[in-house]
């Protein structure tokens, strides 16, 4: 279970998070929605320790993340970044098997390669791509490689940061389906950030909307269309007019 309690974060004079409270139950998939610049990515980065919150606490399985061993904590995580964040200088299979090629989890080269190819196959990529470099792949294929890397260590928790941004609707559908399959099959706890409402409906068990630095609304996916929250209603239906001010 992931629990965020009263999370605050400011950058210079900009208060991005003003007391975020989220609970994600073990094995469930939460989708975090909200306008651009509302702090969705900052929230995830706070959990991962990439950004230090000014105030508030984060618990994973009941343990405060600040009091746990960082390597052990990170070994439970997988993350798919918005731009895939593949390492340009490494071939695809080494990107996927990164953890097993260096550091404390190092394994034999061939063994790591075999596991990487197996994970690539799981996300629908053939072994032909294993020796290519990220720049040689399309955006959709890079996302799949990012997904293969995220699931490589059989994590307990996976974060997906805008997994379908920049993809065509068909490829978005493929990625959404893959994410849902993987979440269900592996029984992981997942948090996804997205603006894409078709992704929300495909991936989420629960939805939380971040607005003005706090969680404006949270509930199961089934309640998304029958909520009386005007902010959520405006966001879900993509209306220019409403309580959320858009730059005209």
């Amino acid at each position, binding site marked *: 279970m992931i629990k965020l309690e009263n999370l605050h974060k400011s950058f210079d004079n900009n208060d991005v998070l003003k007391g975020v409270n989220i609970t994600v139950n073990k094995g469930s998939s939460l989708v975090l929605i909200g306008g651009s610049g509302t702090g969705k990515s900052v929230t995830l980065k706070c959990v991962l320790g*990439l950004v230090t919150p000014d105030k508030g606490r984060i618990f994973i399985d009941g343990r405060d993340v600040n009091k746990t061993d960082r390597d052990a904590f990170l070994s439970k995580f997988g993350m798919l970044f918005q731009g895939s*964040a593949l390492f340009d200088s490494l071939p695809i299979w080494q990107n996927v098997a990164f953890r097993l090629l260096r550091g404390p989890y190092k394994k034999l080269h061939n063994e790591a390669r075999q596991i990487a190819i197996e994970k690539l196959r799981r996300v629908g990529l053939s072994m032909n791509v294993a020796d290519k470099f990220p720049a040689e792949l399309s955006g959709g294929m890079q996302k799949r490689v990012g997904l293969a890397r995220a699931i490589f260590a059989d994590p307990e928790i996976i974060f997906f940061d805008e997994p379908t941004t920049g993809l065509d609707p068909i490829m978005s559908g493929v990625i959404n389906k893959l994410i849902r399959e993987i979440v269900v099959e592996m029984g992981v706890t997942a948090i996804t950030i997205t603006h894409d409402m078709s992704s929300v409906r495909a991936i989420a068990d629960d939805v939380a909307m971040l607005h003005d630095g706090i969680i404006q609304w949270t509930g199961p996916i089934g309640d998304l269309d029958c909520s009386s929250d005007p902010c959520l209603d405006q966001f879900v239906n993509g209306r220019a007019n409403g309580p959320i001010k858009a730059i005209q």
Partner: protein
Amino acid sequence: MTINGSLAYIGRNTLLFLAATGRIVLFVWNTLRHCVAGPFYWRELVSALVQIGWLSLPVVGLTALFTGGALALQIYAGGARFNAEAIVPSIVSIGMARELGPVLGGLMVAARVASSVAAEIGTMKVTEQIDALVTLSTDPMKYLTVPRVVAATLCVPLLVGVGDAIGIMGGYLVGTTRLGFNEVVYLKNTIDFLQTWDILSGMIKGAVFGFIIALMGCFYGMNSGRGAQGVGTATKSAVVTASVLILVANYILTEVFFTA
């Protein structure tokens, strides 16, 4: 601008300078701390040795060759004013080994390596590759900074040594083909006047310059702003700061080595 405005401007820039200095000092401390504590990424170190050392050899070699040749011409022309043309071999060798080899070699490596390191790491930061490293339980300081800093600290002295030899050879080629020196006499004068400490001091300078070059590349890359402009600014700052620090360090080391 009013007096108050001028004072505010000076104060603001002083604070910015002190903050930047503090960040660099902390970065140096963190780098040194990570250099002595594992895990070590040997493959990245070998790759950095090739990138920084081996691939810088042509540019350092060419710089040294032409500098040695030009130095021979200048010393010959200057020496002719008081009938001291014979000092060309000794001054070329001492000048190359003590000053021009390390400084010009260092500046050329700074231009080549600090820029590429800052651009590479800056791009990695902008495209979230550094965040990805963290999520893969890999410390970016250990994986990106330490191999580059260690490689540059080891490679640049060797490049300086090779550059010294090529520079002296440049002087020899110009001296024997253009200035009428006898080949054997030129080499004998070079060997007789050149002392081990001349070469060693230049190589120590090279090690310090190598440390500065990689450190500045990594520092500005890690602190790069967003987008192409952020990476561009980081690259420019890395080269400029590394170059200035090389010249400052060169003066300090020369004071320590030759006037103490």
